């Protein structure tokens, strides 16, 4: 039998606010244990929560970005369960009426366009952390993270492979960073996914029993965990066994999932409206204010790149994979200020995804940390566009830019890298090369195209790479063909 895998994701995006969702404690990562856990966060008797407006602003931004409904009135509820990293014995979350309902996320997998529908996105607080290092057989509890705002984004079970799930997660990850609601730092747990996985016979319209894989904090783990889990479920079913609804954990070392709790052991969370928090009301003005502050979204930016700048779908998509890249590209393009924006745009894309990406990769730097600013790269691009630099020279100039030797023009000046475009000078070089290599000239005339390329190389070498290659080609061919 052939099987279809069905996946839905619940993603927790930590909202990048300064203070916590219900208290005035700082949210900065990496502080010494419990130094950012205030009276409210450690749930002292008598303390009360007050909602952070910035967390709501960010939830609204998300709702607008995914084309969802922003609920005019949403309710905070208590999710009750005991755990040492949950100081109140309940998590403040949203249950019946979340702040955001519906919406969708579109992306491409291979050559296919895919849209995953969203069920909802709701605001909630994060829990603290249990540290399992041995303290005389005890666990240590750090509540610094307790109360950090989260947006839980719940998708419909619309994905059919681990690849689709990863593509969805990557798109969502880029989006939350693009609209600046989450720093997306997966190592620090700022963006993590739970995957609901089930399988069913191909063609069936019934959902199989799902198991939920908790806390996947890298795309690689997401991929491996779903692959393992789906295979496991298929094996079980093919052996005639049933899948029992359960929550499982992924062990990255073994690349396996293991049972955490079954449905029978599932919590009875006893959700009810939090009496300490009145309904959250969001009016039209509030939504419009946020809408006015929204950046152009990745999809819109991509289609603009394709239609206005004639970039390929692939190039445009690579630019909008991250807000930093797209903004960097725009900054370079506008600084060049060229007449032929289409040719310039393509050239910029090649430089960003070629030399710049390679250099950043070697140095293990993010684009935001690049020593070559958008203005600096624009200086280089301008000199390529006006034929001052050949691509070979441009690489040398780029090297100078990377090393901080100044602007492109300064480097050209300092290193004496101006391209030779003077026809007389090039003719002279060509004549010298032909005189020194009569055999190759003969070979070319005998029909060996290779010989021509060798001659071009000789001329370029003689010019120390500065001759304009197009002119070299043209003059050399003319000389060879004319005698």
């Amino acid at each position, binding site marked *: 039998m052939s099987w279809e895998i069905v996946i839905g994701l619940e993603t927790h995006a930590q909202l990048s606010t300064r203070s916590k969702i219900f208290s005035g404690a700082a949210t900065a990562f990496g502080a010494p244990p419990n130094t950012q856990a205030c009276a409210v966060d450690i749930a*002292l*008797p*008598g303390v009360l929560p*007050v909602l952070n407006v910035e967390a709501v602003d960010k939830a609204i931004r998300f709702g607008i970005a995914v084309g969802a409904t922003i609920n005019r009135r949403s309710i905070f509820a208590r999710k009750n369960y005991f755990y040492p990293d949950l*100081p109140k*014995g*309940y998590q403040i979350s949203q249950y019946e009426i979340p702040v955001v309902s519906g919406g969708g996320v579109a992306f491409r997998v291979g050559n296919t366009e895919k849209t995953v529908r969203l069920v909802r996105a709701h605001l909630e607080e994060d829990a603290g952390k249990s540290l399992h290092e041995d303290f005389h057989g005890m666990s240590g509890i750090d509540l610094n993270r307790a109360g950090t705002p989260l947006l839980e984004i719940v998708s419909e079970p619309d994905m059919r492979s681990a690849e689709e799930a990863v593509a969805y997660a990557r798109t969502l990850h880029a989006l939350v960073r693009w609209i600046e609601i989450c720093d997306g730092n997966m190592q620090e747990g700022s963006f993590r996914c739970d995957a609901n996985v089930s399988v069913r016979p191909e063609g069936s319209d019934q959902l199989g029993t799902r198991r939920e894989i908790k806390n996947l904090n890298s795309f690689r783990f997401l991929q491996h965990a779903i692959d393992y889990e789906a295979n496991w479920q298929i094996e079980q079913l093919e052996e005639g066994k049933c899948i029992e609804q359960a929550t499982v954990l992924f062990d990255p070392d073994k690349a396996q999932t293991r049972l955490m709790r079954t449905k029978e052991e599932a919590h009875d969370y006893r*959700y009810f409206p939090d*009496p300490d928090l009145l309904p959250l009301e969001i009016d039209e003005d509030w939504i419009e204010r946020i809408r006015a502050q929204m950046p152009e979204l990745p999809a819109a930016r991509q289609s603009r790149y394709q239609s206005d700048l004639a970039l390929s779908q692939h190039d445009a998509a690579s630019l909008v994979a991250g807000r930093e890249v797209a903004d960097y590209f725009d900054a370079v393009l506008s600084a060049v200020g060229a007449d032929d924006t289409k040719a310039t745009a393509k050239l910029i894309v090649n430089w960003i995804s070629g030399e710049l990406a390679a250099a950043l990769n070697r140095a293990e730097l993010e684009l935001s940390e690049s020593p070559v600013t958008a203005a600096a790269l624009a200086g280089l691009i301008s000199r390529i566009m006006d034929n001052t630099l050949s691509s070979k020279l441009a690489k040398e100039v780029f090297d100078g830019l990377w090393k901080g030797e100044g602007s492109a023009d300064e480097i050209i000046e300092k290193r004496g890298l101006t391209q030779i475009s003077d026809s007389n000078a090039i003719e002279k070089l060509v004549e010298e090369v032909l005189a020194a290599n009569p055999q190759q000239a003969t070979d070319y005339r005998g029909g060996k195209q290779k010989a021509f390329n060798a001659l071009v190389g000789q001329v370029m070498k003689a010019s120390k790479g500065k001759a304009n290659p197009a002119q070299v080609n043209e003059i050399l061919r003319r000389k060879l063909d004319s005698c």
Partner: protein
Amino acid sequence: MIDSSLKQLSADLAARKISSVELTRAYLDRIESNNAAINAFITIDPDASLRQAQAADKRIARGDAQPLTGIPVAHKDIWCAKGWRTTCGSRMLENFRSPYDAHVIERFNAAGAVILGKTNMDEFAMGSSNENSWFGPVKNPWDTEYVPGGSSGGSAAAVAAALAPAATGTDTGGSIRQPAALCGVSGLKPTYGVVSRYGMIAFASSLDQGGPLARSSEDLALLLDTMAGFDARDSTSLERPPEAYTRRLDEPLAGLRIGLPKEYFGEGISADVRKSVEDAIDEYRKLGATTVDIRLPASDLSVPAYYVIAPAEASSNLARYDGVRYGYRAESYDNLLDMYCKTRAQGFGSEVKRRILVGTYVLSHGYYDAYYLQAQRIRRLIARDFAQAFEQCDVIVSPTSPSTAFRIGERTADPVKMYLSDIFTIAANLAGLPGMSIPCGLDAAGLPVGLQIIGNYFTETRMLNVANVYQKQTDWHLRRSPIASNSS
């Protein structure tokens, strides 16, 4: 001094006839001599109190005193006060020294009042007799065989025994008004949202409201001026223009319309209570008020709805007492789950556990709609009843409690019988309305009877006026319990 009103004490302090240190020491002496008989205080800290008194005296000398500067006030042990042991009447918090001040404590401190001590209470404010305290029952100063009411029983008894000139309490289903009635003092539960709940240990968050207990409504007004006020740290605290609760105390009552709910004068009220309340109503008629018969048809459902909503909220509010960050932790346990279960089994008393179990049950899967949602719908019916009633009257008057104080131990075996002690007070909490109780008589055994006054939202000033004019004509609030008559 012991018989002086707060206003008088304030005037005497300002005139330097007495010092705050003398006044505070006098009350500390009275506590020293008499507390053993009634067990009204859980904690006193004479050094801390006298330090505040000294500071108050300096402030008075500097000339920037406020009305409560230098006045000792006893606080229900539900209010977190920095450096003070704050137990909430529970073994769970027996050794909990609060690292912060409640908003109300901040306000009293800012006004220059002196914290006289922390008063006994039913554990986590759950009870109507003060028999549910880990620190032992409080006894009624009028007769120590009898309960003082609860849950603010320590505060009511302290004022009734003249161990404090004034006290604070909290009221979730009658916990200020019922003990005020049973101890013959005055008590006020303001409109929900008027007094900040920040630092007040939560029982049922949507019902809890702090308020004052004192001898007279004039004293209550003075105390409320300090207690009430907006607090940004409580999301349910209401932003309203400041109110001077003392400003209308003496306005004549001519034209006042008093609503008498049929449902609050039915069977089950003791004859003495009925007589005293009817006499009080007659007194009001003499003062120019008219009475209107009104209906509150959903009132018989207030106790059932309350015993769903309050335990549900409590079951969640009390989940934080897990032995991890503060408070009691069981001595021995096998693992984490066992630590939770033993800590909570040993740290909570039986009534608290009972309510947590009821609350957990009504919120659990499959029962939420039938219990919790149904209770919330009935809550709205009750609020609507009041809204309609207040179209016909200015205040509603009734007995505070169907009977006077009962004997210690009399109702402990039957929780439901105990719950019905609050039958007339609970509805105001469900609706969020202000309510007060003032003394209006003594029964045949010489135990006090309380008159309840329920007002519309934010009409505390008018209610205090209604109470004060009555108290100017009568002397029930000036009657003293035997213990109050003990010289020191």
